[in-house]
C-alpha cells in the first residue's frame, strides 16, 4: 500500500521542505520550480501510464482496501496535478510581493495531495481525509493575501461554510455506516440492500444520509443552493488560487460524488436520481443567469463554473459508462479551460490591470496573445468546436440522449435539452468579454505578458486545442476509466 501512496508521500515531503527552503533562496521563483518538481514527476508518471501505457502502477496489496490505483483515479489525479502545475507556474509573479511564499507552495502541494487521495480512495474515511486535507489547505490559500481585506473575508467565509459542509459530509458517512455497516464504497450497496430487507423503514435513514452527502459534496462542487460561497471566495482569493479552486478543488467533489453515487449507493438510484437531475438543471441555469449580470471577471468565471458543475452533475442520474466518460472528459477539459481563463486574469493583475469586465476593453490591441488566449478559453467554455469544451460537452449531452433511449428513463433527454439551452445562454456572457476585447476601444499602451504566467497559459491553451482536435484518444481513455470505476459495482 505504501508503494501506491509513493506520489502522495513525495508531495508531502516537498510540502514540508518548502517553508524551510523559503529562508534559503533569494530569488523566490526557485520556490515555484522546486514545488513543480514533484508535480511534474507525478504528471509525467500518470501521463505515461494512462495515455501511453508504458508502465503499470503497483497494485495495492492489503487486507483492507482503502485505495485503488486504476484508470479512473489516474485520470482524475492527472487533472488535479495538471492544474497544480499551471497554478504553481503562474504564482511567482502574482505573489511576488507577499511574505512566506514557501508556505504558499507548500499549501498548494498539500491541496493537490488531498485531491489525489480523494481520487484514489475506495473507502469513505480515506475519502473524507482527502477532502479535509485539500479543504484546509485551500482555506488557508484563499486567505493568503493577508494585506487584502477581500482575501481575508473570502478565507473566513470559505472556512465557515466549509466547516459546515464537512460536518454534513461526516454525518452522512456515519449514517451510511449505520445503514450498511461498512465504509468501503464498493461494499455499501449489497450491505444496504441486505439491511433494507431486514430492517423496516431504514431506507429513510439512507435517504437522509444521501441528502446530507448531497449538501456536503454539493458545497465542494458549488451546486445550487450550496454555491453561495463560491463567487465571494473566487473573487477574494489570489487569482491563481481561484483557478485551483474552480478547476481542481471542484473536480475533487466530482470525483467523490462519482464514486459514492455511481458505485456506493447506486442501489438506491431511484431515490436520488430525480433530485440530482433537478439540482443539475437548477445549478446550470442559475449559474448562467447570474453570470450574465456580473461585472467582475472573476465572479463571472465563478458563476460560469457553477454552471459547468451543473453540466457534470447530469452524469449521476444518467449513470451509463458513456456518461461517466463524458463527465470525466469534461472534468479534464474544464480543468484546462477554466484554469487558463483564470491565469489570463492573473497575468493582467500582475501588470496592474483590474478585474472588471471594462478593464478588458481593447485588450486585443494591447496584448494580442492574452486576448487570443482568453477568447479561445471562453469559446471553449461555451462549447464552440473545434475546441476541447465542445468535444466534452458533446459527449456529455449525447450520453443523456443515448441513455434516454436505452436504458432509460426517457426523461433523461431533457437533461440534454437543458444543457444545450444553457450553453446557448452562456455564450452571451462569454461573447461579451470577447466583444470588449476586440471591438471596444480601451487604453492604448501595450501589456507585456508575464513570462511564467504566459507559460502556464500556453500549456492550458495547447491542451484546450489538442483535446478538442484529438478528442478521440482522450475519449477512449475516459471510457476505459469510466469502465474501471463502474466495474467496482458488485
Amino acid at each position, binding site marked *: 500500500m505504501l508503494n501506491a501512496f509513493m506520489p502522495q508521500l513525495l508531495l508531502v515531503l516537498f510540502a514540508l521542505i518548502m517553508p524551510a527552503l523559503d529562508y534559503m533562496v533569494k530569488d523566490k521563483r526557485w520556490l515555484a520550480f522546486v514545488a513543480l518538481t514533484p508535480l511534474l514527476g507525478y504528471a509525467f508518471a500518470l501521463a505515461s501510464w494512462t495515455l501511453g501505457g508504458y508502465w503499470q502502477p503497483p497494485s495495492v496489496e492489503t487486507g483492507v482496501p482503502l485505495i485503488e490505483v486504476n484508470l479512473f483515479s489516474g485520470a482524475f489525479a492527472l487533472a488535479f496535478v495538471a492544474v497544480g502545475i499551471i497554478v504553481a507556474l503562474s504564482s511567482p509573479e502574482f505573489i511576488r510581493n507577499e511574505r512566506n511564499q514557501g508556505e504558499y507552495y507548500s499549501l498548494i502541494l498539500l491541496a493537490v495531495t488531498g485531491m489525489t487521495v480523494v481520487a484514489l480512495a475506495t473507502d469513505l474515511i480515506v475519502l473524507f481525509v482527502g477532502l479535509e486535507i485539500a479543504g484546509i489547505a485551500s482555506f488557508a490559500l484563499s486567505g493568503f493575501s493577508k494585506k487584502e481585506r477581500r482575501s481575508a473575508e473570502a478565507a*473566513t*467565509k470559505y472556512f*465557515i*461554510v466549509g466547516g*459546515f*459542509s464537512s460536518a*454534513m459530509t461526516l454525518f452522512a458517512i456515519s449514517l451510511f455506516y449505520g445503514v450498511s455497516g461498512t465504509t468501503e464504497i464498493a461494499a455499501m450497496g449489497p450491505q444496504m440492500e441486505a439491511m433494507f430487507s431486514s430492517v423496516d423503514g431504514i431506507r*429513510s435513514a439512507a*435517504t*437522509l444520509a*444521501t*441528502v*446530507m452527502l*448531497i*449538501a456536503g459534496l454539493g*458545497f465542494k462542487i458549488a451546486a*445550487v*443552493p*450550496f454555491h*453561495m*460561497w463560491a*463567487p*465571494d471566495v473566487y473573487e477574494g482569493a489570489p487569482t491563481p488560487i481561484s483557478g485551483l479552486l474552480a478547476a481542481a478543488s471542484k473536480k475533487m467533489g466530482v470525483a467523490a460524488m462519482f464514486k459514492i453515487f455511481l458505485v456506493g449507493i447506486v442501489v438506491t438510484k*431511484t*431515490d*436520488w436520481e*430525480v*433530485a440530482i437531475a*433537478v*439540482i443539475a438543471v437548477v445549478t446550470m441555469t*442559475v449559474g448562467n*443567469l*447570474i*453570470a*450574465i*449580470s*456580473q461585472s467582475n471577471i472573476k465572479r463571472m468565471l465563478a458563476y460560469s463554473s457553477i454552471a459547468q458543475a451543473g453540466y457534470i452533475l447530469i452524469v449521476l442520474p444518467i449513470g451509463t459508462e458513456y456518461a461517466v466518460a463524458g463527465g470525466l472528459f469534461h472534468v479534464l477539459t474544464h480543468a484546462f479551460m477554466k484554469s487558463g481563463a483564470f491565469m489570463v486574469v492573473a497575468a493582467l493583475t500582475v501588470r496592474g490591470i483590474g478585474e472588471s469586465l471594462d478593464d478588458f476593453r481593447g485588450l486585443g490591441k494591447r496584448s494580442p496573445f492574452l486576448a487570443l488566449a482568453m477568447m479561445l478559453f471562453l469559446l471553449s467554455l461555451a462549447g464552440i468546436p473545434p475546441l476541447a469544451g465542445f468535444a466534452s460537452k458533446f459527449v456529455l449531452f449525447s450520453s443523456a440522449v443515448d441513455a434516454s433511449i436505452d436504458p432509460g*428513463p426517457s*426523461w433523461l433527454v431533457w437533461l440534454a435539452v437543458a444543457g444545450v439551452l444553457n450553453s446557448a*445562454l452562456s455564450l*452571451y456572457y462569454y461573447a461579451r468579454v470577447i466583444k470588449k476585447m476586440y471591438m471596444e476601444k480601451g487604453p492604448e499602451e501595450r501589456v507585456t505578458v508575464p513570462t511564467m504566467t504566459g507559460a502556464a497559459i500556453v500549456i492550458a491553451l495547447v491542451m484546450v486545442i489538442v483535446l478538442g482536435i484529438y*478528442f*478521440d484518444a482522450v475519449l*477512449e481513455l475516459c471510457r476505459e476509466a469510466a469502465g474501471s470505476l463502474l466495474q467496482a459495482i458488485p
Partner: protein
Amino acid sequence: MLEYAWLIPVFPFLAFLLISLLPKRTLSWEDGAGYAIGGAAGALVLSALVIGDVLAGNTMVGDGPKFTWLVIANLEVTFGIWVDQLTAVMLLVVSVVGTLVVVYSGGYMHEEGEKRRRYYAEIMLFISVMYGLVISDNYLQMFIFWELVGLCSYLLIGFWYEKPSAASAAKRAFIVTRVGDIMFMAGIIILFKYVGSLGFDNLFGEDGIAAVPNDMMILATALIFGGAIGKSAQFPLHEWLPDAMEGPTTVSALIHAATMVKAGVYLTARSYPLLVQAPETLLFVAVIGGVTALIAATVALAASDIKRVLAYSTISQLGYMTLALGAGGYLVVYADTAGGYSAALFHLMNHAFFKALLFLCAGSVIHAVGTNDMRLMGGLGKKMRITSLTMLVGAIAISGVPPLSGFWSKDEVLAAVYNAGEFDSLFFLLWAMGIATAFMTAFYMFRMWFMTFAGKPRSDYHAHESPKLMTVPLMILAVLAVSSGFALFVGDGFGVFAGESIAGLYHGEHHESAVDILAHIFGDPLTYVSLVLAIAGIVLAYRIYCVPGFDRTVFATGTAGRFQRALQNRWYISQFYDDFAVKVVYAFSLVADAFDRVVIDGLVNGFAFLGARSGNLLRKAQSGNVQRYTTIIVVGLCLLLMFMLYIAPGGWW
C-alpha cells in the same frame, strides 16, 4: 511509391504556409512566386513518380494507409489515399497545368504589387486541396476538399474584391455551386445510411452495392451527380462560370478550365460503380451533358468578351465529358466496354491542356491590350507572334482537326454516344446535338481567333509580346495540345489504361494496335461527318470574320437579330435566375426577415430581458453575508429531504 502519394498535397500546402506566414521581406522575388513555383514543382515531381507507378500497373485502391480521424460509437472516420488510373489522369492534369500556370503568373501578376502575396498563397492552397480531392479514398474526405476548392475558387474569383462585379461574381459562384454541394452531401448521406461507411472500398464492393435498395441508389447517384452539375457548371447551374471570369485569367485557366470544374466530371467518373447500378441516372447524366454542350456552344457564338467565349466553350466541353460518361455507362452495362468512360477521361485530359492554353493565350492578349472585349482588338497577330500561333494551335485542337488532341477525344466521345444509341434511341438525338456542338465550337473558336489576331486594330493600343515567363508555358502547353491525343496509341493505348480503373464493372478491354485504332476511326463514316462540320465551321468563320466585305449587320436584324439578342442575353437564363431571385426569393426572404425580427428577435429579446432580470434578482440573494449562506444551505437541505422523502418516490414522472 504510391503510399507516399499523400505527400503530393503537402508541398503546395507548405508553400501556402510559407507565403502566408513568412515576414514580407523574406518572400523576395514577386512576393512569394519562388515558393509557389517550388511547391508546385515539388508536387509535379511526386505526381510524375506516382503516375509512373500507375503506368507500371500498380494501384492502391482501398489497401492504402489510413489515418483514423475520429471514432464515434460505430462510426469511424478515416482519411486515406486512393490511387488508380483515374487518379493518375487527374494528377497529370493538375500537376502540369498547375505548375505552368504558377510559372506564367510570375509574368502575368507582375503588376499587382502587394496583392501578389495573397494571390500566391491562395493559388497554392487551391492546388494543395485539389490534389487532396483527387487522392481521397472516401466521399467524406472528398467532400471536405470539394468544399475547400470551392472556397479557393471564391477567394480567387473575388481577387479584385474592390471591384463590385468581381465581389458579386465570387458570391454567385459560391452560392450556385453550393446548391450542387448540398445535393452531393445529401447523396452521400443516403449512401451512408444504407452502407454505414463512406469509403470507396466499402461502397463500391459487392456488399456495399447490395446494401442500397435500387430506388435509393437512383436517388443517391442522381444527388451526387447534382454536386457535379454545380461544380462542373452543367445546365441549369452553369451560369456562374462565365461570371467567374472576373478573376485573374490565370485563375480562370487553372481553376475554371483545367482543374476544379473537372472535379464534377471526376466525381461522376469516380462514382461509376454506383452509377452503372442506376441506368436511369446515367440517362439523366447524358441528357444534362448533351443539353449543356449545345446551349453553351450557342451562347459562345455571340459573346464578345474573349474570356466569356472561352468560359462558355469550357461549359460546352464539360458537357461533352458528362455526355460521354452517361453514354459510357450504358456501354458498360449493355455492351461490356469502357469506351465511353475512357473517352470522357481522354477528353478531360486533352481539354485541360488546350483550354488552359487558350486561357493563358487570352491572358497574354489581355495583358497586352488591357481589355477583354474582342470588338476592340484585331490585328494582334503580327505583334504577338508566339501568342497568336500558340492560340491557333489551341483553337485547331478544340475544333477537332486531326492530328491535334481534340480530334481524337471528341471523336471517341461522339462515337461512344452514337454506339449507346443502340440501347436507347435518345442517344441518337444527343449525338446529333454533339455534332451540332462540334460545328459551333469550330466556328466560335475561329471567330474569336480572327477577331483577335486578324485584320486591323479596332482601337488604339500598343501591344507587344509578353515576357518569356509567360510565353514559355504557352509553348509547352501548345506542344501538349498537339501531342496529348497520341496517348491513344502509346503502350496499350489510353482507352485500355483508363478502362482499368473500372475493371471490375466489365470484362476487360481488348487491346488494339495503333493501326487498328486508326483504321477504326477513319473507317467510320461518322468521323467524316464531324470532321467536315468542323472544317465548315472554320471556313465559315474565316469568311465572316476574316475576309473583308462581309456585312455583319445582317445578324442584327429580323429573326437573326432576335436570335442574336437571345444569345447575347445567354438565353435569358441568367436573367431568369435574377428575376426569380429578386421576385420570389426576395419576397420569401422579406417574410422570413419579418418573422425573424418580430417573432424570433422578440423571443430572444424577451428571454434576454427575462434572463438579465432574473439574474439580477438572483444576484440580490447573494448578499455577502455568511450567515445568510448557511441558512440557505440548511433550507435547501430541508427542501431536498422533503422532496426525496415525499415527492420523488411517489413518482410523478
